[in-house]
């Protein structure tokens, strides 16, 4: 590929080169962010074709409009925001017409409490982990989306609020409540294991 020079480059540098029309920089932007965009899109909609279309649409639009773009320090945030807007437009359009589009009205968090780590380091039983997974699954779609943006995509609360169009406080609260649930259930688990250990000395 021609983008070896961009392997370790900073976001602002790659972005500027891309705006100047450097195709390797453009490709680097795709390579660096396709995974997070795909993970985000596939959780918002079950229609893989639509998600791919939204990604294609956005990148093509980016290239054609590069001259009018400003500079940025976080390409990831910029792309996630634009992608979300693009995909939601498509989802809404598909819902209006009677299309054969598989659209989830929920956000598929696909949380997977890290089994190996949890079991070995934290000594939590498999069944408890599954319980926790279910708890996370029962969160509202918006809560799951904020969790995803915070912990998978690594956006800060300002960026999350701008992406989802919610107040920063709301984003904060949603993450807080979700983590509280997790923590409470885990503490529950800890204490029950503790009781077990006390009652049955090894």
């Amino acid at each position, binding site marked *: 590929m021609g983008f070896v020079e961009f392997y370790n480059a900073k976001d602002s540098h790659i972005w500027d080169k891309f705006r100047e029309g450097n195709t390797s920089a*453009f490709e680097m932007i795709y390579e660096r962010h396709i995974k997070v965009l795909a993970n985000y899109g596939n959780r918002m909609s079950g*229609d893989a074709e639509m998600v791919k279309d939204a990604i294609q649409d956005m990148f093509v639009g980016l290239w054609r409009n590069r001259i009018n773009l400003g500079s940025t320090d976080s390409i990831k945030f910029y792309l996630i925001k634009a992608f979300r807007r693009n995909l939601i437009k498509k989802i809404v359009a598909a819902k209006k017409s009677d299309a054969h589009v598989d659209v989830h009205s929920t956000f598929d968090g696909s949380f997977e409490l890290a089994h190996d780590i949890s079991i070995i380091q934290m000594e939590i039983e498999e069944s408890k982990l599954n319980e926790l997974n279910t708890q996370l699954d029962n969160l509202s779609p918006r809560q799951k989306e904020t969790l*995803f943006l915070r912990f998978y995509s690594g956006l800060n609360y300002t960026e999350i609020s701008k992406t989802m169009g919610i107040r920063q406080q709301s984003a904060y609260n949603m993450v807080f409540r979700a983590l509280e649930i997790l923590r409470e259930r885990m503490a529950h688990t800890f204490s029950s294991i503790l009781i077990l250990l006390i009652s049955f000395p090894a």
Partner: protein
Amino acid sequence: MNFDNYKLSDFLMDESFHKWVENSNREDEKFWASWLADHPEKKNDADQAKKVLRSLSFKDKAFSKKEITELWDKIKSESILEKEADTKTVKFRPWKYLKVAVVIIPFIVAAVLFLFFRVAPKKKQVVERLLIEKSNPKGEKRTVFLSDGSKVKLNAESKISYLHPFDKNQRVVQLEGEAFFEITPDKDRPFIVKTGNLETKVLGTSFNIKAYPDEGNIMVAVKTGLVSVENTNYKLPNKQNKSIVLSPMEMATYSEETNQTTVSDYDSLKVLAWQDGTLYFDNATMEKFVKDVEKWYGVDIIIKRKKPILKGITGTFKNQSLEEILMGTKETSEFEYEFLSNGKILIK
């Protein structure tokens, strides 16, 4: 920022603490490591928070490597590879010449200006227009984005061609094969799709056109908006062309044999399913089944049967492999298949 009063929940919510737990940021790592060394009484809470955060992870839901590469190829062909179109368009800037004329020979300015404005329209006509052709071989589908934002989903073994940029007062493309169009509304520039003798005209709607040269029919099915379909090979007594207006859920079928166009309803599942990866058969003959499968997967199928297959083939196959489809239909349709060494498939 005073962390002395941090409780477990505060650790849980702190972004920089997250980064330390993830080991993703050098500065955060240094900060928290040293802060915790200074505040051993907080170690318990911090550890608990760490455990909670560490346990929260996500399944990977991206696309396969192949899909990621294919998607990039599509993006590339729609963006980077169309660069030439931009650079070839001549941007006419009279002001550059104006400055020179004013500085060097002021009294000729008027004459020069007059000349340029007279010549300008001609110059614009000499702007190079590219003939763009996008075609899919058997077994491949893709989405093409036009310069006005319209989207064309091109099916396998299909080709779309157009001049870039579009005309001032109309947008014209030629289609061979099948495509689903989502056209950006522009009431000053009708969008026209030419398929042999048939011309389909819209202002901004979505519709599907099927015009494979080996089938004797051309079908135009409307999803949203209004579409006008005209047979340019048919002149009414008053020498005008005959045109039909279609509304959503209506389809026009033009037969090359009879040179006639009929209007009917259509089963949207049958007609539009190909776009989201669904292959659909409704009591199809063996010939149609084979032809569609050949096109979809890009394979060659040879039929060697003594007994003709009487039962029609019916089924909906979404994102399935060729093997899955063959296996799924062979029982009910009573045929056997074999993958030959030369890559073709034998149906017996």
